[in-house]
């Protein structure tokens, strides 16, 4: 009933009460995963297949229940006579674009950090990653020599604390 009231409130504010695109994407991916696990289980010995079949089936039933619940709520709201609003348009202002850019840059640099760890070594990769990411996120507010000192200092601190003191093996590669 809370969801029903939420749907009414959402409609009153002009939003269409149904699954938004992100939720739909997640439900679609989860459905594919459940089906993958279920189909894979049929090719296994019975003992190994038992738990995956039970859990995948339970998951698919839950998904079906959730989708039926959402459709019932949408139908109930439509029946109550409220006109459908539309989802707000994604923000096109500069702040939204900047936020998205920062997110993707952080993700891209993290991926690069992992690849570099294995090629040029942990210390150099850490210094490059920290320096570059701070530089990008600070949007030029920090001077390059400050960035370099922070980057080198961080890599040295990580080596001292984790490599030497705690003796945690750090990735080694060509340059270090």
């Amino acid at each position, binding site marked *: 009933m809370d969801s029903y009231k939420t749907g009414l409130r959402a409609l009153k504010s002009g939003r269409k009460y149904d699954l938004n695109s992100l939720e739909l994407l997640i439900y679609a991916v989860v459905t594919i995963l459940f089906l993958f696990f279920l189909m*894979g289980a049929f090719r296994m010995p019975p003992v190994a297949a038992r738990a995956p079949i039970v859990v995948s089936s339970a998951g698919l039933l839950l998904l079906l229940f959730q989708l039926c619940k959402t459709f019932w709520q949408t139908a109930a709201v439509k029946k109550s006579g409220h006109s459908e609003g539309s989802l707000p348009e994604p923000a096109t202002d500069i702040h939204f674009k900047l936020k998205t850019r*920062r997110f993707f840059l952080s993700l891209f640099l993290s991926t690069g950090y992992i690849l570099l760890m294995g090629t040029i070594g942990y210390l150099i990769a850490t210094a490059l990653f920290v320096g570059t990411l701070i530089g990008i996120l600070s949007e030029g507010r920090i001077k390059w020599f400050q960035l370099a000192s922070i980057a080198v200092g961080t890599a040295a601190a990580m080596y001292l604390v984790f490599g030497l003191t705690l003796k945690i093996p750090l990735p080694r590669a060509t340059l270090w």
Partner: protein
Amino acid sequence: MLEMIASAVYLSISFHNILAVVVGTTVGIMLGVLPGIGGILAISLFLGITFKFETATALIMLGGLWTGAIYGGSISAILINTPGTSTSVATTFDGYPLARQGKGGVAIGASMMSSLCGGLVGWCFLVVAAPLLGSIAVLLGPAEYFLLALLALTVISSVSQGRVIQGLLMACLGLLLSFVGFDPITGYTRYNLGRIYLMDGIDYAAMLIGLFPISEALILSMQRGSIAAAGKIEGKVSQGFKVPFRYPQTLIRSSLIGSVVGCCPGIGGDTANVLSYATAVRNSKHPESFGKGDLEGVVAPESSNNATVCSSLIPTLTLGIPGSAPAAVLLGALLMHGLFPGSDLFVKRVDITYTFFAGLLYAQILFFLISWLGANFFARITLVANEYLVPMILMLSLTGAFALRNSLYDVGLTLIFGLIGYILKKADFPLVPLVLGLILGPMAERGLNTTLMLSGGSWSVFLNQPVCLLILALIALSLGSPLIKAILNRSRSVSS
């Protein structure tokens, strides 16, 4: 038994363990001060790093991190009206008005002493109740363990704030991910997509590190500047130390509320601090003064939230049912070190268990001392800009992921889970059931298959044992409670 406890306490005062608790508590306070970070992130950030430590040292450090983080959240709650952790929400009600009146130091001192008292009460609960419950856990068989795993998953899903179905879906997904790799009974390799790396399964530490710290760092990367504009303490902190003793009834009652609520699986400090604040208001002679800077309004939530740290470990260590979300992460740490809840901890490895308990006691005392000495320093941490915070969190997380198995594949997997965690957070899907499914999957599957092998394939064994029936009733209650609550709320609103 007493000799073992004495030797465990003696072991706990080794140099490594003391260093671990000091570092863990200090770092925990620093991380707890930063809003959005909290106990789960603090523990999962260091999970990989502590993997190489001795088991007791690792657990002590993680316990120190959690204790420190719970307290650290109070500093930002009082100074900048933004709770550092969800367990400090009620502290803002009176803490921030006190800070605005120039009594921030007194409020912080009061919160420190209240947290210490509450933490000690919770610790006593743990030390007394856990061995008792642990001796009962020895009597549980595979059927009971299978159902306990299901109970843990349903409880955690049902407290997912109105997203019960989503919580259960995430729990199912976590269980399925736990089936990747070798089947524990037949040794058959499942779902590894032909990759040798996946033959050992998905490492839950890598998933934890990705889902919590990395996803949070990605969210923070989208925000500019720092979380706070002002992080300064006015007034002397030591003036607040006597404050909790002016309200002995509130102090004792809130500590007990925290200890009892912490024992209830899935609830944790979030509920305890609000519940104890509401109880304090109801029982106060001057309820109108609450919300305007009443020190009693700081004593109540602070004593209860620290009490939950130790008491939430009671169901976690004895039955494998996490008492709170950070306890779920700590459960993962236990399993990572080859320890299993129940008889393993209270019969075979009692030395490690009591060393851990001793470490928790030191953490409760140390956070008080460290916060007293470094109160102004910790307050300034709220001024750290996101451009420094994000790279540090990402770097520590990815380093920790590598430290697990010295594998860059783990690091890559952690980043993938970081992205998944970000997407799930944006869509408001709960993450803890996903993690718990992965952690409890092997225990649940082993219990199920062993039970069915012993019963000759008959499922009726789950309905023949009284303990199984009790657990099934609890599962039904936990699944039905959100619906019952909704119906009760509706009937109350109709009658009003």
